[in-house]
C-alpha cells in the first residue's frame, strides 16, 4: 500500500461532500423559507455543482483512505449518471408532489443523500464502504417509497421495500463476514492481488461469501429470483419515485456488482455459470410477465427487471469490453426510462388517473407531441434503431458474441422480440385507440419540460452518434488498478 493511497484526503470526495453539505444546508433552510420552488432550484444547482466537481476528476485516477476510495473514470462516469438521475428525479417530481399534496423540501434532501450513497458505492473498492454507501442510498429510498403517507398503496410499497431491503442487507453483511473470514480483509484490491492463494486456502468460504453478496445485490437490482418485491413496490410508490427507483439504485447496484465481481473477484470463473442462469431467468421472467400487466407502472416494473437481465448478460461476459457496453447501456437506459416515467407522471398528475394502460387511450388526439415522445421512449425501451436503446443492446450483445456466449445472445435477442409486444401496446393505446370519454388534458410545466427535453435529446444523441459516448464508456473502465 503506497503512501498516496493511504492518505486521508477528503478532497478526493469533493463531489460527494458538496452534495451532502448542500443537502444539510437545504434541510435547514427549507424550514425557514417556505418557497418550495426555490428549494428545488437550490437542490438542482447544488447537484449540478457536484457534477462539475465530479467531471473535473475525469482522467485523474487517485485513491485514498487506505485504499477504500478509488476515484477513477469508472466512478466519475457513474457519478454523472447518478447525479443526472437525481436532478431529473427532482425536476419531474415537482408537479406531482404539489398535485398529490405531499410537497416537502425534505424530498429533495432525501434524493440528494441517496445520490451521495450511490456515488460512494461506485467509488469504493472496499466492501465495507460499499455496504455503507448502499445503506445511505437505501434509507432515503425506503422513506421516499412511503412518501405519500395518506395513501395506503404508498405505505405498503414503503414497508415492503424496507423489509426486503433490510433483509438483503442482512445477506450482504453475512457475505462480507464470510469473505472477511476467508481473506482477512474487505479490500477488493488485496483480494484481487492474493486471489490464487486465497482460493486455494479457503475456497468454499469465499464462494459462499460471494454468493451471499451476489444475492444481496440481486435484491437491489431486481434480478430473478430476487424480484418478487419489484412490481408491488413500483406500483405503490409515488410515480416519479418509481422512475427514480428503476434507474438510480439499479445503476448503483450494478456499479457495485462490477466493482466486486468483475474487478475484485474477477478471477472467480466458477461464478460465470451462476451469472448465466441469472441473466437468462431475469430476462425471460421479466419480459413474459410484463405481457400480462394492465397497469403501466407494473408493466414498466417488469420491463425494468428485463433490462436488469440485459445488463446481467454483460456481467456474465465479463471483461473490459462487456462492462463498458453495460455502462453505456445504463446511461442510455437512464434517459429513456426516466423519460417514459416523466410522461406517466404527467398523466398521473391529473385527478382520477389510475395508471392503467387503457388510461392513455386517446393521448395522441389531445397531445400529439407528447404521444410521439412517448412512442420514442417505448421504441428505445424495445430497442429499435435509431434510439439509444438499440445501440446499447447492440454493444452488449456483440460483446457477448465476441466472447463466445452465442446461446445467451440468442436468448437475449428472442427476449427483446417478446418485449416489442408490450411496449407497442402502449403506443397502440396512445395512437390508435379511441377512448369513450374525453382525454383530460395534462399540463406542461417548465420543470417537466426540461426533463423531457434532456431525455429526448439523450435518447437520440446516444443512439445516433454513439461513438463519442462509447469511447467515454470504454475509458471509464477501471483506468487504474
Amino acid at each position, binding site marked *: 500500500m503506497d503512501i498516496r493511497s493511504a492518505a*486521508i484526503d477528503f478532497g478526493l470526495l469533493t463531489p460527494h461532500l458538496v452534495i*451532502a453539505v448542500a443537502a*444539510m444546508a437545504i*434541510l435547514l433552510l427549507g424550514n425557514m423559507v417556505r418557497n418550495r420552488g426555490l428549494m428545488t432550484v437550490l437542490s438542482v444547482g447544488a447537484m449540478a455543482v457536484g457534477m462539475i466537481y465530479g467531471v473535473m476528476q475525469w482522467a485523474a485516477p487517485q485513491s485514498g*483512505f*487506505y485504499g*477504500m*476510495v478509488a476515484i477513477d473514470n469508472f466512478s466519475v462516469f457513474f457519478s454523472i449518471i447518478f447525479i443526472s438521475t437525481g436532478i431529473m428525479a427532482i425536476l419531474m417530481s415537482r408537479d406531482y408532489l404539489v398535485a398529490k399534496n405531499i410537497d*416537502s423540501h*425534505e424530498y429533495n*434532501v*432525501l434524493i440528494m*443523500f441517496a445520490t*451521495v450513497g450511490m456515488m*460512494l458505492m461506485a467509488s469504493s473498492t472496499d466492501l*465495507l*464502504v460499499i455496504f*455503507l*454507501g448502499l*445503506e*445511505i442510498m437505501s*434509507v*432515503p429510498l*425506503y*422513506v421516499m417509497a*412511503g*412518501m405519500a*403517507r*395518506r395513501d395506503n398503496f404508498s405505505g405498503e410499497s*414503503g414497508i415492503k421495500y424496507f423489509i426486503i431491503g433490510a433483509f438483503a442487507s442482512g445477506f450482504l453483511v453475512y457475505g462480507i463476514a*464470510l469473505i472477511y*473470514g*476467508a481473506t482477512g480483509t474487505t479490500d477488493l484490491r488485496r483480494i484481487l492481488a492474493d486471489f490464487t492463494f486465497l482460493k486455494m*486456502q*479457503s*475456497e*468454499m*468460504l469465499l*464462494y*459462499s461469501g460471494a*454468493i*451471499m453478496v451476489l*444475492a444481496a445485490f440481486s435484491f437491489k437490482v431486481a434480478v430473478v*429470483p430476487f424480484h*418478487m418485491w419489484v412490481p408491488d413496490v413500483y406500483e405503490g410508490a409515488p410515480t416519479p419515485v418509481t422512475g427514480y427507483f428503476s434507474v438510480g439504485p439499479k445503476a448503483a447496484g450494478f456499479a457495485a456488482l462490477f466493482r466486486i465481481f468483475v474487478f475484485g473477484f474477477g478471477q472467480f470463473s466458477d461464478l460465470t455459470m451462476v451469472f448465466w442462469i441469472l441473466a437468462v431467468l431475469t430476462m425471460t421472467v421479466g419480459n413474459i410477465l410484463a405481457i400480462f400487466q394492465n397497469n403501466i407502472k407494473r408493466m414498466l416494473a417488469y420491463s425494468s427487471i428485463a433490462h436488469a437481465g440485459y445488463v446481467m448478460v454483460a456481467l456474465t461476459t465479463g471483461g473490459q469490453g462487456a462492462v463498458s457496453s453495460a455502462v453505456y447501456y445504463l446511461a442510455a437506459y437512464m434517459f429513456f426510462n426516466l423519460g417514459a416515467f416523466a410522461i406517466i407522471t404527467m398523466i398521473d398528475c391529473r385527478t382520477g388517473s389510475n395508471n392503467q394502460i387503457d388510461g392513455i387511450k386517446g393521448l395522441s388526439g389531445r397531445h400529439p407531441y407528447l404521444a410521439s415522445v412517448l412512442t420514442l421512449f417505448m421504441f428505445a425501451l424495445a430497442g429499435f434503431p435509431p434510439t439509444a436503446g438499440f445501440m446499447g443492446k447492440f454493444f452488449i450483445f456483440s460483446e457477448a458474441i465476441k466472447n463466445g456466449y452465442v446461446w445467451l445472445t440468442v436468448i437475449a435477442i428472442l427476449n427483446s422480440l417478446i418485449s416489442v409486444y408490450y411496449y407497442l401496446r402502449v403506443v397502440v393505446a396512445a395512437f390508435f385507440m379511441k377512448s369513450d370519454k374525453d382525454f383530460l388534458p395534462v399540463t406542461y410545466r417548465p420543470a417537466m419540460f426540461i426533463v423531457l427535453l434532456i431525455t429526448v435529446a439523450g435518447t437520440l444523441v446516444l443512439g445516433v452518434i454513439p461513438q463519442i459516448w462509447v469511447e467515454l464508456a470504454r475509458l471509464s473502465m477501471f483506468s487504474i488498478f
Partner: protein
Amino acid sequence: MLEVIIFYISALIAIGGAVMMIAQRNPVASVLYLILSLVAQAVLYIQLEALFVGALLIIVYAGAILVLFLFVIMLLNLRGEKFGYDQGKVGVATKLIFSLVLIFELAAVVHTVSRSTNLARTSEHLNPGFGSVPPVAELLYTKYLLPFELTSILLLVAIIGAVLMARRDRADKEKEMT
C-alpha cells in the same frame, strides 16, 4: 472445561431466545426473548476476547435499539392483534429456495472450517490489548475514518427519514380530533 460449559449454555440460550422470539404471538415477549438471546451472544463475544464490542452489544443493541422496539410496540398497543403464520401460496417456493441456500451455507461453513488450514491455526497468543477500547479507537480514527464518518451521514439520513415518516401533520391532528 468451564469454558466449554459456558459456551454451550450461552449458545443454547442464544438459539433458544431467537426461536422463542419468532414463536411468540405477543411482540413484547418477542423483544424480551431477543434481548435474552443478545445477552447470551455478548457472553460469547467476551469469550472471543471482544470485550469492548461485547459491552456495546448490551449497551447499544439491547439497551437502545431493542428498547426502541419495545417503546414502539407499547406505543402502538399491539397486544390485541392476532397473528398467524404464512400460509400463502407464494411462500412455499420462496421458503424452499431460502432453506436450500441456508443448508448450503451451513454445510459450506462446516466443510471449509474443518479442513482449512487458515482457521485451524487459530492463534493462541493474541496481540496485547486485543479487544479492548484503545485498538478499536485507533482503527476507527485512522484506517476506518471514512466508514466512521459515513455512519454519521447514515444516522442523519435515518433521523430525517424517521421524522418525515412519523411526524404528525395537520391531517393527522384533524383525524384525531374527530
